[in-house]
């Protein structure tokens, strides 16, 4: 029997995720591997999140609270937003998926930066839509070009701010102008996965824009995978107008987020101290690495996130192999058309030092 997989699915080249540490260790027979590849928080999650998991265990045989009441309650208070303006997902990745399934019909277009988070493209294709990639300008989203690319078929515009893999951001003034300009029949997905790391005072306040412009369809996405150190639990959230959220809830599976993730995320959210510690560590790591890259005369893109895009001046794939043998995993960016670039997650102090040493060695090889 020929399996009747739909053509658009067959046409996809799936996303290749970063390798788990254990796999790298096994393959290369390495004692110790430092993973700086998937923009995870080197500080780990808040100890309060771990405690919350232990506490939630006694109810694990029950389905999770499908409405995520308690987490939404905490989010609502923290962000001064109503619960019906919040959707929870099995990672923000799932909320992206739900948004596309809810709003994109076959043949319609999405616009996204190139390169940006690759899932935007894949999702569009998997829903039989057409993705229009708009090249970045100086490694930053080119909002005017994105606005010009709008056609009568455009349904969704994806913006990662800060952007992955470049780490760059659009500033308040430019963003507000853009959001005002986009017609109200187009959904803007504002992916703020790295929001907590973006401490620049010019970082745009899209949440306030959503509150003040309820007629503009904007979906703001954030995650517990990055600064909150909970990538392993799979939980993220989306914010938007009640209409928008309620439509997406129709497509969402009722128990999409597991109960331990709900409990841990709520505890993590309430531990402001841990978040601050993570941010500080990231800041000092960033300064250290930038200094070193300058010393090594490597071009890098200034970043407002927990990762840095670096031009290593040779085939990224080969460079990556060399680093792997030295026990360091980074992300080569060939797949994004950046053939000599790697994306490096900022690690702990010792990890960053080990990285710099390894880069020094690898460059000379």
């Amino acid at each position, binding site marked *: 029997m020929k399996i*009747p997989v739909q053509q658009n699915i067959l046409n996809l080249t799936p996303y290749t*995720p970063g390798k788990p540490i254990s796999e790298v260790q096994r393959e290369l027979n390495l004692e110790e591997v430092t993973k700086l590849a998937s923009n995870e928080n080197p500080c780990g999650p808040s100890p309060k999140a771990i405690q919350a*998991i232990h506490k939630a265990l006694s*109810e694990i045989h029950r389905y999770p609270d499908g409405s995520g*009441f308690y987490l939404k309650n905490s989010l609502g208070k923290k962000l001064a937003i109503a619960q019906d303006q919040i959707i929870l997902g*099995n*990672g923000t990745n799932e909320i992206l998926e739900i948004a596309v*399934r809810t709003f994109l019909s076959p043949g319609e277009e999405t616009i996204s930066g190139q390169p940006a988070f690759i899932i935007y493209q894949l999702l569009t294709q998997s829903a039989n839509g057409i993705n229009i990639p708009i090249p970045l300008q100086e490694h930053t989203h080119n909002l005017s070009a994105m606005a010009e690319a709008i056609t009568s078929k455009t349904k969704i515009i994806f913006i990662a701010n800060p952007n992955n893999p470049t780490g760059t951001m659009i500033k308040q003034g430019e963003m507000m102008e853009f959001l005002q300009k986009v017609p109200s029949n187009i959904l803007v997905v504002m992916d703020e996965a790295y929001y907590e790391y973006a401490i620049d005072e010019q970082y745009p306040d899209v949440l306030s824009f959503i509150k003040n412009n309820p007629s503009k369809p904007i979906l703001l996405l954030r995650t517990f995978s990055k600064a909150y150190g909970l990538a392993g639990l799979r939980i993220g959230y989306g914010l938007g107008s009640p209409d928008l959220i309620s439509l997406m809830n129709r497509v969402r599976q009722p128990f999409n987020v597991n109960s331990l993730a709900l409990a841990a995320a709520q505890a993590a959210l309430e531990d402001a101290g841990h978040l601050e510690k993570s941010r500080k560590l990231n800041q000092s790591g960033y300064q250290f690495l930038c200094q070193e890259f300058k010393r090594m005369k490597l071009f890098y893109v200034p970043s407002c996130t927990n990762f840095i895009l670096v031009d290593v001046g040779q085939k990224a794939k080969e460079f990556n192999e060399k680093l792997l043998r030295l026990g360091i995993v980074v992300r080569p960016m060939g797949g994004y058309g950046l053939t000599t670039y790697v994306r490096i997650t900022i690690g702990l102090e010792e990890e960053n030092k080990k990285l710099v040493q390894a880069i020094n060695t690898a460059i000379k090889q």
Partner: protein
Amino acid sequence: MSIFWSEIAKQITPYVPGEQPRDKKYIKLNTNENPYPPSPEVIKAIRKAANEDLRLYPDPDCNELRCVIAEYFTLSKDQVFIGNGSDEILAFSFPAFFNPKKPILFPDITYSFYTVYAKLFHIDYHLIPLDHEFSIPVDQLTKKNFGIIFPNPNAPTGKYLPIEKIKHVLEKNKEVMVIIDEAYIDFGGKSAVSLLSQYPNLLIIQTLSKSRSLAGLRLGFALGHKDLIEGLNRVKNSFNSYTIDRLALACAKEAIKDTTYFNNIRNKIITTREQTANQLIDFGFKVIDSKANFLFITHPVHPAEKLFSQLKEWGILVRYFKTPRIDNYLRVTIGSDEQMDTFLTTVQKLLP
């Protein structure tokens, strides 16, 4: 807001899960959960895995868990797919195996997710009416179709199709996908896993939410020919690699491996089910023969909807569907013996 939402989104009536009220502590017999906690080994594994490694993304291929499940069923690893609940596997199966304009078949009274997903993915479908005893009329599953999906035992009836009948369906449908949703198979039914080697078009979906007491963690798995599993992987990896969290991966292995605990718990539930059914029959209920962890019941004089509200007032939640044909039935999940005693005494009090 302008009305630009896709037609599909507008048409979807979402699946409404059993209620989870917060006003007081209820005895929850409404969502087919297991009343007992998972194996102590499972709890141990979660406690161990709840550490700072949670900062790391999980293994997107779920390799270890797939190996354990494969071994349990004597299959190979590439015949196993893991999902964030069997709900997610169902959600992937529709676009992976069914096509728009090529109608599939499923029973008229069944897990309501099938309709939700068929609509979401533009899959046409024909409903096969259950017979008057709520059995799936197997002969009707032999008519022309482009795919079949049904649960065994069926939900919300609990009615089970013996393996010979499943075989009959498969014999008559060798050219199309047949998906059997075995969410409740461990409560007295016989899985069709033994038929996998003969039928490369058979996909079996099971869950850890019911017999393995892990509804909160969201874990389901699919078993089938490796090409079918590849189809599911394609769909999954086309938009989300990391669907299964680290804690689920860490503990599910233990849930599968601890067969002593598993058998203990399911036998306990089966015993409680039979005792409860007998009592209800004594009270005058008609009880549909169940091989699941719930009973589907109706009373000749006392209306189901009324009993449902009365039970709620007494702090007991059961499930009532205001759906034609079954709107005088209640679905009652089998809880612990103690919970069922409370349920039975309350019911007895409420009956005229």
